[in-house]
């Protein structure tokens, strides 16, 4: 699908740009509209398991609601105006609700943008693109790739160590102190294994002629093509339209030291 084909660097920079601009907006309507737009784009132009998107989205929703709630409850009451709304059986000043919603929705807007990137980007392609477009040194980039490969291996190893320790009669920890001791015990075999693995991988990479030099050819050339620019145009264009909409209906406000 379209989103998966966009050059990963262009996509990443667009997302960062949109997040940056949204950070200056301080009304709930603009981010809300933009969230709807981002989710729409993600679902229409991306292919992935929709269920996982929901799983990933839930913690962000909770965090956003937490942000909203704490802002409402702990707000500075001295600036209260006459207006108030009733919410969950309690009276709150409208202005506070407004600020809190702006904060909460902003978190969600950042989250949906990040998820758009996460769900439509192949991590390997992203790193390859960083090397080729942003001149990330291969030494770092291929190190990250090798590490990325290690993560699932570390996970299985951790599970094995846990089972192996259980059979040694290391009981489930009761206190914080014991828990700490247990993690220390896990850490030693895990680290010893990781260091050995890393060293072997490094030797294997060097034996294949890897020097970390910047001149190298690529099996997967990552190019920025004309069609890649459609994504930033679309995302920034919509951000402009959303802001224009909010301004027209009088909802819009910049961040101006509201908190």
């Amino acid at each position, binding site marked *: 699908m379209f989103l998966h084909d966009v050059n990963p660097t262009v996509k990443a920079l667009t997302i960062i740009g949109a997040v940056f601009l949204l950070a200056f907006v301080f009304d709930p309507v603009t981010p809300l509209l933009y969230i709807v737009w981002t989710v729409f784009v993600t679902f229409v132009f991306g292919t992935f398991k929709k269920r996982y998107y929901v799983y990933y989205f839930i913690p962000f929703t909770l965090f956003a609601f937490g942000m909203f709630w704490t802002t409402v409850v702990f707000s500075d009451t001295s600036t209260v105006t006459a207006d108030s709304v009733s919410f969950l059986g309690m009276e709150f000043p409208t202005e506070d609700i407004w600020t809190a919603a702006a904060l909460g929705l902003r978190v969600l807007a950042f989250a949906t943008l990040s998820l758009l990137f996460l769900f439509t980007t192949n991590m*390997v392609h992203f790193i390859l693109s960083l090397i080729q477009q942003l001149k990330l040194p291969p030494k770092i980039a*291929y190190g990250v*790739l*090798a590490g*990325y*490969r290690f993560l*699932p*291996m570390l996970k299985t*190893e951790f599970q*094995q*160590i846990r*089972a*192996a*320790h*259980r*059979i*040694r*009669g*290391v*009981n489930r920890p009761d206190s914080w102190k014991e828990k700490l001791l247990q993690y220390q*015990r896990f850490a*030693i*075999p895990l680290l*010893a*294994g990781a260091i050995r*693995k890393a060293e*072997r*991988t490094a*030797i*294997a*990479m*060097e*034996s*294949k*002629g*890897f*020097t970390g*030099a910047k*001149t*190298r*050819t*690529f*099996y*997967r*050339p990552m190019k920025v093509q004309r069609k890649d620019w459609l994504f930033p145009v679309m995302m920034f264009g919509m951000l402009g339209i959303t802001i224009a909409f909010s301004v027209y209906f009088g909802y819009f406000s910049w961040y101006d030291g509201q908190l």
Partner: protein
Amino acid sequence: MSQEVIRVEDLTLRYEERQKPVLSRLTFSIEEGENMLILGPSGSGKSSLTHCLNGLYPRELDGAMNGEVLVQGQRTDSYPAGEMAQNVGVVFQDPETQFCMITVEDEVAFGLENLNTPHASMVEKVDQALRQVGMEAYKTADISSLSGGQKQKVALACILAMEPEVLILDEPTANLDPVARKEFIQLLKRLKEELSFTLLVIEHKLEGWLDLLERVLIINEKGELAYDGPLHDHLKTYARDIHEMGIQLPYATRTALEQGWTPPYPLHIGDIPPVALPENRPVLSAGKALLEAEAVHWKSILRNINVTFHEGEWMAIVGENGSGKSSFSRILAGIQPPSKGSVAMHGRALKKWKESEMRKEVGYVFQNPEHQFITDTVYDEVAFSLQHAGMKEAEWTRIVEETLKFCRLDGLEDQHPFLLSQGQKRRLSVATMIVENQNMLFLDEPTFGQDEKSTSDLMSLLKEKHENGTTIVMITHDMELVDKYATRVLVMNEGELSFDGQPKELWARPDLGDHHLELPPREQWKRAVLKREEPAYVSS
């Protein structure tokens, strides 16, 4: 006349932290197209030699390297960094750690990218290399989804793609099961016929390699050159010396040594003279039922397994990788509860046992011994469970000392478990599991990746334990072990139990190959003898 590709002259290698040199005054040369085996006891610096030959040393060396290593007539340190990969390629032992990319094609391309191969020819070379090793169907697959044998084939493809003149294989099959191992050697034989390259193999197990390798270089424990010459002739006469270095000889040669025959020793099963070999017929001692599994299911991995283990049995669980052997044994040992069905020990369901009581009955030795270590010294490691059982000090010190002695770890009490040798680590993990005199001992591939010496040490230790009444359950791929020790064998296939009976009944089955199993060498020999005798029998 063929040309010299590698010349090593008076090579001495020292690591900073060690007094003695790892390699000492080595001189030899290798000609184009040769097939050479490098032998030596563990720690004799064979892998260090690899690093010297492919130019990694002296660049990455903490220490000193004296003498000369010439590849294609040029000193290795005069090649620009990275260029040596075009001359000398190495396949390493561990299939897990020689990759840095996610998919097969990216990994094969990685080396070519390093060599600045233009894109168009790179695509071609990746395809070609994968075709050569027969892995073209896995081009876009994730490396992590492959089996060990397939990973080693990919590792080989990565090197072949770069078309080096010299191919070094550093114990390429040490972590593979016997069937995958055989396949890998077959593949090399075929490649040797199709392509021209010089082959250097470092190995601990000789079985299968003899048809391919002609010359041998033996390095002794001091890192000196002990022998350089034809492999077969040397082996026929000096097999005992090679055996004592911890090298696993081919079955035929090993048998000859065990039987005390005189040289020349046979090298292949077909060469064994037709005399009666001792039958390994383990005594059948079906004691009381000890552990009963009833209709055990686990996730989608295990389906409806019913089996009863008796006291005094030596069980082997065999089957292809991913057939559920480890999962099943973990359920039996009470580490993992089944999702359906039940397991009972001494007639009492496992879930009703208290964890601490159960551990006194059942021990489990994991595949990687390091995972089980929890203290800082060998002594504490063995003493750990006794100290926590609330035993008197005088008593547990006695038991600990006995156990250490039994596992031949006496004298190493103050060592850190992680600093032991592979064989010692394995024996320590066994020691921790028998110290409470457990009735039943599970072992997950106990001989995997071990050299001949530590394998035989471990097996004799287990045998003694078994004779004293311990029930042993081992997961293994090694049919020779099954043939030699097991009284009963279970074959797992796709999460189901497809065979349960005596080993000799299993060998008689025609469908062994379908389960990724092979006949043990003793059976192969028996059949070879029968075949030889058959025509004679008919004519008489």
